[in-house]
Every structure is written in C-alpha cells, then in structure tokens.
C-alpha cells in the first residue's frame, strides 16, 4: 500500500526522511510512540516497585523513614510519569518544527505546573 498518511505521520512525529513505508499496520513503530511507550512503562514499573516495597516495609516495621520515603517517591514518580510523557512530546514536536503541537503540549505542561502551584497556595491559605 503506497498511500501516504500525512496526519498520522505527523502525529507520530516520524522525522522526515522515512517516507514510503506505506500504511502497513505491522510496520515500524513511530519514534514518538515508541519513546512514550517506554517512558510510561518505566514510570509505572518504578512507581509500583517503590509503592510495593514502601507499603510492605511500613506495614512490617510500623513505618520508618525509609518506608515513608519510598511511598512518597512512588507517588511522585506516578505523578511525574504523565508529565514526562508530555515533555518528551514537546521535545519531539519542537525537533519536528511542528510549532502548533509544540505550543499545545507546552500549554499542558503549564497547566500541570499550575496544579502544583495551586496546591502550594491552598496549603498556605487553609
């Protein structure tokens, strides 16, 4: 099949120069999707491991500093994983010079940071 897929090609962030692969569904996994898959998988595994060890330690030992650290690290990695996914997308869109989508992903990053700022402001007030 030789029909091109302009939208998908852009959407997946394939750099120019890899044209002509066609639309075969079993073809090479586009770069951005591959990176995102890796980021998400690594994030989930790291956070689940921290949470599991932290939980077992806290239940066994009554909650020491290490278990509290691991539990919080697990939560922070869990929260950081989607953020990391947006950051790699921004980097890829910038390197593809896809300014529209680079801007959109930057807006999402700003919104995510605003939620952290909102939490800090709420903490101060309440």
């Amino acid at each position, binding site marked *: 099949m030789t029909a091109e897929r302009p939208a998908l090609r852009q959407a997946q962030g394939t750099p120019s120069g890899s044209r002509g692969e066609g639309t075969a569904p079993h073809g090479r996994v586009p770069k951005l999707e591959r990176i995102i898959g890796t980021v998400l998988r690594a994030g*989930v595994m790291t956070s689940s491991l921290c949470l599991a060890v932290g939980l077992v330690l806290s*239940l066994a030992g009554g909650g020491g500093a290490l278990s509290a650290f691991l539990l919080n690290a697990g939560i922070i990695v869990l*929260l950081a994983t989607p953020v990391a996914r947006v950051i790699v997308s921004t980097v890829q869109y910038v390197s593809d010079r896809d300014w529209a989508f680079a801007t959109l992903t930057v807006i999402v990053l700003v*919104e995510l940071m605003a939620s952290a700022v909102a939490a800090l402001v709420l903490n101060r007030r309440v």
Partner: protein
Amino acid sequence: MPVVTAALALTIFAAGTVSGSLGALLGLGGGVFLVPFLNLVLGFPFSVAAAISLTTVIATSSTVSAGRAGKQLINMKLGMLLEVATAAGSLLGGVTAQFVAQSVLQKLFGIVAVIVALIMLSRLRRRNVILDPAADPGVLGGRYHEAESGGTVTYRVKRLPLAITASFVAGNVSSLLGIGGGIIKVPVLNAWCGIPLRPAAATSAFMIGVTATAGATIYYGHGQLEPALAAAAVLGVQLGSWGGLHFGAAASAKWLKILMAAVLFILSAMMFARGGR
C-alpha cells in the same frame, strides 16, 4: 486522615483489585466503584477517597497506554490537543473541590453514576469509518488496523469544539469526583465527533493520565493523599486490571454491564441518601 493499619491496607488492596478488574471488563476506569467504597463503606472524607482513586486512575492510564503505544489505536495528536482542555478542567475541579461541601460532591457523584449506568445500558455503537484506504484523514483524524474486519480503516474528526467542551467537562468531573472521566469523553467522541469506539477509548485512556495528574497533584500537595493507602489501592487496581484483561474474555459482557448498571443505580441512591443529610 485515616490511620493506616495492615487490615485497612489489605481491605483497600482488595477493593482496588475488584474495582480494577470490573473496570477492565467494562472498559471503564475502576474509580466509579472505588470512590463510593472508600467514602460510603470505609467512611473516608470524599476528598481523601477521590485523591486515592485518582492515583489508581493515573497508574491504569500509564499501564494501558504503554501497552497500546505504537499500535495506531491512540490518536496522539487529538489526545494532546484535547489534553489542553481536560487539564484545564481538572485544575479548576481540583481547586473547586477544596471549597465544596462533601454533600455536594456526593450528590454530583450520584448524578454522574446514573449517567454512567444509562450510557452503559445503551452503549452507542456507531462505526464512523471510511473504508477507502486512500482517504485523507485530515490533520487530526487517524487510521488504524481493525482486527474484526481485517482491514485498515480511516476516520476524520468532526465537531472539534464539542470534543474540546466534553474534554473540559470530563476533566472537571474527574478531579472533583476522583474518576477518570472517560465515560463522558468516549461516548461524545464516538457518537458525535466521528471517532470509532476503539480509538476513542484508547485516546481517552491516554489523556486520562494527564487529566488525573493535574487533580491528584492538588490533593497530594494539599495533604489529602495518604501514600500508604494510595499504594495499596494502586497495586490492587494494577493486579485487578491485569486479571480483568487476561481472564475477561470468558465473562459475558452484556450481563456484566446490566449487573454493573444496577450496582451504579444503587451507589447513586446511597450517595444521594448520604449527601442529603
């Protein structure tokens, strides 16, 4: 904040496992079951229940999307566009939740649970595909391999403002109530915006991680998330959704949906009863 004991952690782990497997079987996040369990059965404040549930929503989104990345089901461009709206809605909802009385959130949950049940009972099944493989899907449309027909199908995105509005509402409800919000986006994307069910569901699940992160960060930063209990819930939901996906084929989806719709009507009534006091 509830005191963490081994019995409580195990109870939440078990509840997470059940919610996760139901969620995987029904194509929902499990939050719609987990939040009422934590709030009504264990008696946690609504915000504490929502915070725990949001962490499980993030974990499910990341796991599911990691498995799907590269299979053309997730429409990443559409997802990243709509995330601008879901994250804004979620940010607003997370802040609003800090100022709204628990009874209001319980009533809102009751309303959303009824809507979820009604949608589940009348699941929209429009195909929305263009079978000509050379058709241009446009900037936001997509193309994917459909296992049932064995062919490659193309779709275009229609009514983008509606998709953005639904995403904003879904994000808002997500962080107010601690659910993923896919139940609001997927039917809208599927029925009115031209997106076939599977890419609509995959794209929604992909976006939900960012949506729930905006909400969960507010609860966590504001000290409403107990990490040990979130850990128990996240691990339970991970186990449950893995189980649901691997052993789900044997279950009858139709009867399961009818049963779960009945459960949701009951949960809704309980939320109204509690919220009305």
